[in-house]
């Protein structure tokens, strides 16, 4: 018993140390730097300022944020539109075929997302697989430009984040009591009405969870717009990356990071608040 306790304490301590050292401390450094002056020679000077936060609301910079948010919003809606029917199908398909389909959702995780994004480049570039196919079939006269457009960025984001939408939706829909659907049918609801009045409200936790899990990472996935969108589509992630690696403006990049974290935290808070209310109404 004592030995067990010792193991437990050690495990927790090691983990806590790890998290403090490699998550908490770096983040604190970022927060501290965001309040310091920029120094072209040595990245930052020990001189407090809040000018970087004010600069964030400069129209040029603010546009990056709004642009990025709208990208993430669009991505979330698209993954929801694709993921919901798939999650529903997954939850209704026979128990024997289900593991295989779930595998198909999970298998892409076995390869680095960066490599998969390069694969998308090969598919979508001017002389890539899709264009070759279209040309061979004679459907188009010349190559269609897909890569380095908004479409390519959306394809990349939706493709990368789809599993994060499907899995929470599946988890909720799988637990949905089919007898409730029958009861609604019995009371005169058409299929559409059953969906709108019973299925959708009861799957809202999954919709919320999936949306958060897609929306938040999509704000920070800088390499997908980089590789698929070219320089045109700048997202918050790219913006921050550029401040650190290209402009060498660490304090401003830090301020943008902190701001992004604040946006994410407030969204999580809203999510938890909504879920708490929902659970109180459904579970209690």
């Amino acid at each position, binding site marked *: 018993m004592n030995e067990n306790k010792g193991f437990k304490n050690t495990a927790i301590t090691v983990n806590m140390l790890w998290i403090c050292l490699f998550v908490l401390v770096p983040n604190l450094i970022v927060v501290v730097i965001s309040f310091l002056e920029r120094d072209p020679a040595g990245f930052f000077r020990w001189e407090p300022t809040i000018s970087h936060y004010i600069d964030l609301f400069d129209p040029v910079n603010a546009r990056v944020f709004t642009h990025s948010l709208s990208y993430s919003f669009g991505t979330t809606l698209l993954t929801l539109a694709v993921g919901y029917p798939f999650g529903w199908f997954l939850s209704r398909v026979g128990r024997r075929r289900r593991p295989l389909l779930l595998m198909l959702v999970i298998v892409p995780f076995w390869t680095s997302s960066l490599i998969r994004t390069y694969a998308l480049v090969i598919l979508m570039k001017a002389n890539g697989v899709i264009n070759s196919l279209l040309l061979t079939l004679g459907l188009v006269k010349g190559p269609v430009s897909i890569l380095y457009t908004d479409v390519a960025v959306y394809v990349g984001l939706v493709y990368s984040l789809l599993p994060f939408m499907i899995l929470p939706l599946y988890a909720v829909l799988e637990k949905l009591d089919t007898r*409730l659907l029958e*009861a609604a049918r*019995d*009371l005169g609801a058409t299929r559409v009405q059953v969906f709108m*009045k019973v299925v959708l409200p009861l799957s809202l936790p999954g919709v919320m969870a999936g949306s958060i899990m897609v929306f938040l990472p999509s704000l920070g996935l800088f390499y997908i717009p980089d590789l698929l969108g070219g320089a045109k589509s700048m997202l918050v992630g790219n913006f921050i990356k550029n401040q650190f690696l290209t402009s060498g403006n660490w304090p401003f990049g830090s301020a943008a990071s902190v701001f992004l974290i604040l946006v994410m935290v407030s969204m999580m808070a809203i999510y938890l608040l909504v879920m708490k209310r929902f659970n109180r*109404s*459904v579970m209690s």
Partner: protein
Amino acid sequence: MPVVSLQNVSKTFENHVVIDKLSLDVFKGEFLTLLGPSGCGKTTVLRIIAGLETCDQGGIHIDGKDHTHVPACDRDVNTVFQSYALFPHMTVFDNIAFGLKLKKTKPGEIKQRVEETLALVKLSGLGHRRIQQLSGGQQQRVAIARAIVNQPLILLLDEPLSALDYKLRKEMRLELRQLHRKLGITFVFVTHDQEEALTLSDRVVVMNNGAIEQIGPPKEIYEEPLNRFVAEFVGESNLFDAEVIKTWGETMDIRVQGVLKTVKNRRGFQAGQRVKVLLRPEDMTVESGKQACLPGSFPGRVEEMIYKGTTVELIIRLEDGKQVVVLEFFNEDAEDISYDMGEGVCVSWIDGWEVVLPHE
């Protein structure tokens, strides 16, 4: 004209025949019970009437119109589900108003009808409650209210009382009967509980293996079972092998347990035919066996005496090893019924209370 008419309905699930060429008429305003062991297809019949299941063969008419291909949402039929299937994300009021809202009833009328129905199922004032805040019995009432508020032509009830405890179940039984009388709606009730079936119904349909064994009023089902299955499924029974010796008119002599008995011959049995004699435990009598048994009664020994409050159940082993169950009532003639274990007794039955069934 029957309000529901099933004609030669068959249903197969994964090569397993659940319903086999079943025909059934339900009449307007009656309380019909489908009774049978689990897996006999009674719930499937209910689901076919509701439109939640299609039939592979045959058809269904509701109110004289062909409903074979009419979806559940377009049938004037509502169901009380076994698990209640109440919507967890709605209040009691919204659950009950669900069907009315779909029919685009005016809000004022919805409110009035929901309140009336709540009063009818004795839940007045609980409309704002969440489903999770209700007890099992209250959820049951909401499920009933949600169905009857739509004033359907037929109300289907799928083992609605099975989740309740014994006392509540008896209470709900009485209320269901009163509700049926008040509403005048046709009730089709599914149960595996024979007591429920006998106490509630105008007519009982006994089902087995996807087919109907017997249809009739409860008294007839209990007292005049058509075959061994019905006899044994509904109520307790003692079955004796017997042989017809001689018949004349409505009467015949049979040999049962080596004893010659004169009984009624209602089904045209012939001399020499093998038959089964059915006797309910309460139809049998026991005499102390201190003297030799009278001709026509069977000697045996008391093996077990089970006190049941108003009755005593005796398990008696006859001389040839056959076990019979006899129910004795306490009354002014028998204020104290007491037998010793192993005591010799004579078992007989009240003449004319036997049912003679074909040998199967």
